Structures are given as structure tokens and as C-alpha cells.
């Protein structure tokens, strides 16, 4: 076997390797630990690219851990959708990590930075594995690892808000995990399988025997993933957690972690449950209304916030609603739009949190009303912020428009123009709370001329890259969209 066949396992193993190697290395020579993690992340990203190329050339790839085939062994699967998720996860986290290198020295005490690298690598590894795994129980373990690592990169700051927020996050997501596991048990009871593909085959038959088990499982999955990815009524943990964390963590959590669970729900709904089960009960209908409510309420809450990061966190609740809207509409184009929004929002929100981080780093300001005139002091940062906001609003030329375009098209195709109005209304609300920040940052006079620290290049360059990426996702989206559309069409 060629080495490239092992990439699915190697990506995860390499990241874990870097995670466990970092603490001793950091203790021994702190200088080496950052390059080490960066190297491992880039190598993993490179592998993901090669893997994607491989998958697009020769179709889905299965990998059996330890050579044990399912139902006994753990199976990893790479299909176009998963490789897309993998690319987004690894690419965005590498990008955030580069930014984090500088920002962390400001936000964390020096001796925990090594631990931060460890947690970061574990988080990325678990997310990559969530995207890859083809086994429900393995997914459970990975979700727990992911949650602990995510809580870890919040609570590592060790101030009171962070600790409290991460505890809240931990408890609520423990509830989510409990529900998930119960759902898995229900499916296991009905079929005796945990592997996605085997379950998919067996569920049709089991559905006639134990319909209640299977419905309950699906509903529990919605609750579980809804909690973990902050679907509307289950979002209560998110704002505190995302706002109080160090900025790179916020970028990571808002940008990737909540999306990963959304992707997992996509995979479970479309790769595990056969169509007739989804058609038999209005599960997607529930998701649809919750998502629409989330889109609206997230935006409305965001308008009421005084703290910049709090506002961005609430905005994430609205944006995750867009992703679930795709699932809820249960229609090819809408799902494509929702999945594309995973990438768009990952890049955009990460960039917005990064620029908030730069603002806090250079001026120490967190309140929105204190941002007046900051655009003159930090032009590049605020330009990046502007580009990000444009994408959030969905202005043409940014990725936000593309995903909204597909979502709206899907809503029309499904015969539900009402949800197009929801999308438009949320865009308007986004405009109403993002625009004043930009306007006051560039147009009003503030007293920032004297107390601004210079922005280090290590923070500036990721921001510029992010702004370019947002524009690229808006203009050169065609290949990704075509790939996603094919993947979705084959799933439906």
C-alpha cells in the first residue's frame, strides 16, 4: 500500500502526535513547540489536499483502522463531502494557529501556552476525525474529546468568566452527548450495527419493525447536535463561551467547532438514515423552523449587545441557523448552500474574531461604542472587519452571497418563499448591527491616535489572507459548489 492510502489515519495520528509531543518540548525548549505544531498542522493540511485530489479522482476511500473491517473495527471514510469538511477544518485551523502564535502571548500566561498548543492540536485532530469517521460510537468518543478540548481552550485563560462559561458549555454539551449516546443505543437496538453504511442498509428493514426506536433516535440526534452546534433554543451556552475565550479560541470555536457538529448531523441524516425515514416524519421540518427562529433571534440578540465579541458570538447563532436551514429545507440546492456556508462562515467569523482580537491586543477596547475612530488607527484590521461584515450581510463579491443565493434558491425550489424572506430579513438585521460599527470606526473621531500598540505582522498577515479568502469564496466559488452539489445529489 502506498503511504497516501494511510492519510486518513495519519492526519489524525500526526495531530495527536504533535499534541503529546508539545508539553515535553515546551518544557525543554519553548522555542521549538510553535514551529512543531505549525509543521504538523501544515503537514496534515497538505495530506488533506492530496486526499481530496485522490478522492475526486478515484471516488470514496475507506480505511479500516488496524485492518479490522466493520462491524468490528473502526472505519474511516473519505468521500467528497468529508474531504471538503476536512479541508475546511485543517485549512482554517492552520490559519487561526498562525494568528494565535502572537495573540496568545498577550492573552495567556506564558507557562500555559504549551498546553494551549496541545489542546489546539487535540481539538483539530478530533474535528478532523469527526469528519472522517464512519462509525457512530467512534463519533461519540470524538465528540467528547472535541468538547473537552474546546472547553480547554476556553478555560485555559483562567479568569472567572472563562471558567464559568466553559463549565456551562461542558454541562450542556454533556447533556447533548447523553442524548446522542441514547440515540445511538436506540439504533443499535434496532439494527445491531454502528457503522454508517451498514446501518444505512439495515435501517430500511428495521424501520418496519421498530419505527419508534428510529424516530426517537433521530429526534435525539437533533437535540444532541443542536445543543453542540447551538441551534436556536439550545444555544444558551454559546455567547458566554465564545465571547470570554481568548480570541484565537473564539475564532476556532465559532469558526469551526460548532460547524463540525452540524456537518456530523448532515452526515448522519443523509448517510445513515434512508430517505423514506426522513420522508415519513417531519424531522427536517422541525429543524427548519428552529433554524429560521435561530437566524432571526441570533441577529436580534446581536443587535442588543454592547460587547464586540459578544455581538460576534450572537451573530454566530444566527449564522449557524443558515447552515441548519439548508438541512431543514431538505433540498439539494439548499443543502449545498448550507454546506457552502460552513466554509464561508468558518473563514468569515474566524476573521472577525481575529480582528476583534487585534483590537483588544492593540487598544484593550472591547465595547462597541468605544470603537469610534479606530479605523484610522488600525486601517487594515478594520478593512478586514469590513470585508467580513460584508460577507455576513451577504453583499455581492463575498462568500456570504453565494451561500445565501443557494439557500434562497433551494427555498424557492422547495416552494417556500417565506424562508427567503427570513434570509433577507436576517441580512438586513446583520447590516443594521455591523454597519454602525464600521461607520463609526472610519468616520467618527476617536482618541486612538496615541494609545495604539503597533499591530505585529504575524497578526496582520492572517487578517489579510482572511479578507482575500472571503472575496475568493465569493468570486471563485464555482468548483467547490459544483463538487458539493454533486456530493449532495449523490447523498439524496
Amino acid at each position: 500500500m502506498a503511504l497516501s492510502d494511510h492519510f486518513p489515519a495519519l492526519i489524525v495520528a500526526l495531530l495527536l502526535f504533535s499534541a503529546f509531543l508539545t508539553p515535553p518540548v515546551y518544557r525543554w525548549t519553548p522555542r521549538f513547540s510553535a514551529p512543531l505544531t505549525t509543521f504538523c498542522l501544515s503537514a496534515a493540511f497538505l495530506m488533506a489536499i492530496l486526499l481530496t485530489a485522490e478522492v475526486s479522482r478515484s471516488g470514496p476511500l475507506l480505511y479500516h483502522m488496524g485492518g479490522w473491517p466493520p462491524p468490528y473495527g473502526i472505519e474511516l471514510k473519505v468521500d467528497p463531502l468529508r474531504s471538503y469538511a476536512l479541508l475546511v477544518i485543517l485549512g482554517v485551523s492552520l490559519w487561526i494557529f498562525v494568528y494565535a502564535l502572537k495573540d496568545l502571548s498577550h492573552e495567556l500566561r506564558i507557562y500555559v501556552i504549551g498546553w494551549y498548543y496541545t489542546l489546539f492540536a487535540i481539538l483539530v485532530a478530533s474535528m478532523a476525525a469527526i469528519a472522517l469517521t464512519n462509525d457512530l460510537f467512534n463519533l461519540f468518543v470524538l465528540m467528547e474529546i472535541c468538547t473537552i478540548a474546546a472547553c480547554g481552550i476556553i478555560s485555559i485563560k483562567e479568569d472567572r468568566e472563562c471558567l464559568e462559561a466553559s463549565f456551562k458549555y461542558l454541562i450542556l454539551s454533556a447533556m447533548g452527548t447523553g442524548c446522542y449516546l441514547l440515540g445511538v443505543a436506540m439504533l443499535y437496538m434496532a439494527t445491531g450495527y454502528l457503522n454508517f453504511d451498514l446501518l444505512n442498509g439495515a435501517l430500511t428493514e428495521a424501520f418496519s419493525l421498530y419505527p419508534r426506536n428510529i424516530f426517537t433516535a433521530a429526534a435525539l440526534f437533533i437535540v444532541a447536535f443542536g445543543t453542540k452546534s447551538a441551534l436556536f433554543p439550545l444555544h444558551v451556552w454559546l455567547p458566554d463561551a465564545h465571547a470570554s475565550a481568548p480570541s484565537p479560541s473564539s475564532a476556532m470555536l465559532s469558526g469551526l467547532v460548532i460547524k463540525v457538529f452540524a456537518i456530523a448531523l448532515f452526515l448522519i441524516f443523509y448517510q445513515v438514515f434512508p430517505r423514506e425515514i426522513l420522508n415519513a416524519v417531519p424531522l427536517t421540518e422541525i429543524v427548519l423552523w428552529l433554524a429560521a427562529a435561530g437566524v432571526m433571534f441570533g441577529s436580534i440578540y446581536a443587535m442588543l449587545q454592547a460587547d464586540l465579541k459578544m455581538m460576534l458570538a450572537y451573530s454566530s447563532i444566527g449564522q449557524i441557523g443558515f447552515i441548519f436551514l439548508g438541512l431543514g429545507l431538505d433540498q439539494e440546492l439548499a443543502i449545498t448552500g448550507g454546506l457552502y456556508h460552513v466554509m464561508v462562515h468558518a473563514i468569515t467569523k474566524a476573521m472577525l474574531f481575529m480582528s476583534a482580537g487585534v483590537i483588544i491586543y492593540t487598544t484593550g477596547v472591547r465595547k462597541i461604542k468605544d470603537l469610534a475612530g479606530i479605523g484610522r488607527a488600525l486601517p487594515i484590521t478594520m478593512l478586514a472587519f469590513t470585508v467580513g461584515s460584508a460577507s455576513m450581510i451577504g453583499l455581492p463579491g463575498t462568500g456570504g452571497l453565494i451561500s445565501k443565493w443557494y439557500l434562497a434558491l433551494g427555498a424557492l425550489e422547495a416552494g417556500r418563499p417565506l424562508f427567503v424572506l427570513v434570509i433577507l430579513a436576517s441580512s438586513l438585521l446583520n447590516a443594521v448591527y455591523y454597519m454602525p460599527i464600521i461607520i463609526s470606526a472610519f468616520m467618527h473621531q476617536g482618541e486612538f491616535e496615541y494609545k495604539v500598540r503597533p499591530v505585529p505582522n504575524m497578526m496582520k498577515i492572517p487578517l489579510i489572507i482572511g479578507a482575500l479568502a472571503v472575496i475568493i469564496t465569493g468570486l471563485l466559488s464555482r468548483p467547490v459548489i459544483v463538487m458539493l452539489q454533486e456530493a449532495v445529489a449523490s447523498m439524496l
Partner: protein
Amino acid sequence: MEILQGIINNYYYMAAIILFVIGMHTMLTHANMIKKVIAMNIMDASVFLLFVAVGYRYGGQAPIIVEGADGVYANPLPGALILTGIVVAVSVTAYALSLIVKIYRFYGTCDYDEICELRSDE
């Protein structure tokens, strides 16, 4: 009567679900954080119980290969999975407890409601 029969036949499942509900209710309604953690463990354990009960075959032996044992074993797969699950649950517990100790250092209380009050007072 049929329902009762169903309950009696599936009493492991029923117990597991009851424990799950008790655990989740305690976890979400009690303000004390350590209580929340204990309840979380109960909740997890109940699901594990459900899993193992699913894998159990009536009259089956433990899945250990011993000389002279005949063929009927309980399904070992849920056992292997639950093993992992318990470890995961314990690690979450450990992490939550260390968080609680740190939170106590800041707020002087383990009561979540009191913490919320303290925060809103600021």
C-alpha cells in the same frame, strides 16, 4: 396488560431510561455544580447500561475464551465500546471537577445560581 408485560420483559431498558431521565433532570435543575457532575455520571451510566443490555443474550456467557466452553456468548462489542465510554465519562468528570475547584477559588461558591447572581451584580 400487554404494556405491563412489555415493561417486565424489557426491565433493563426501562430502568436505563428512568435513570437517564433522573440523571438529566438532576443535572439540569440542581444548581450545585458537583451535583451536576454526579448526575452527569448517572446519566452516562444509564446509557451504558442500555448498551450492555442490548448486547446481552439470555443465558449467554461472558465473552472469554476458556477451554471447554460452548458457543453462546454475550455480544462483546457493546462491552468494548462501553469501556471506552466509561473512560470518556470519567475524563469529562475529572475535567469538570478541576473547573469547579477553580471556579470556587474565584467565586467562593459551588452554586451556579449564586454565581449568576454575583456576575449580574457586577
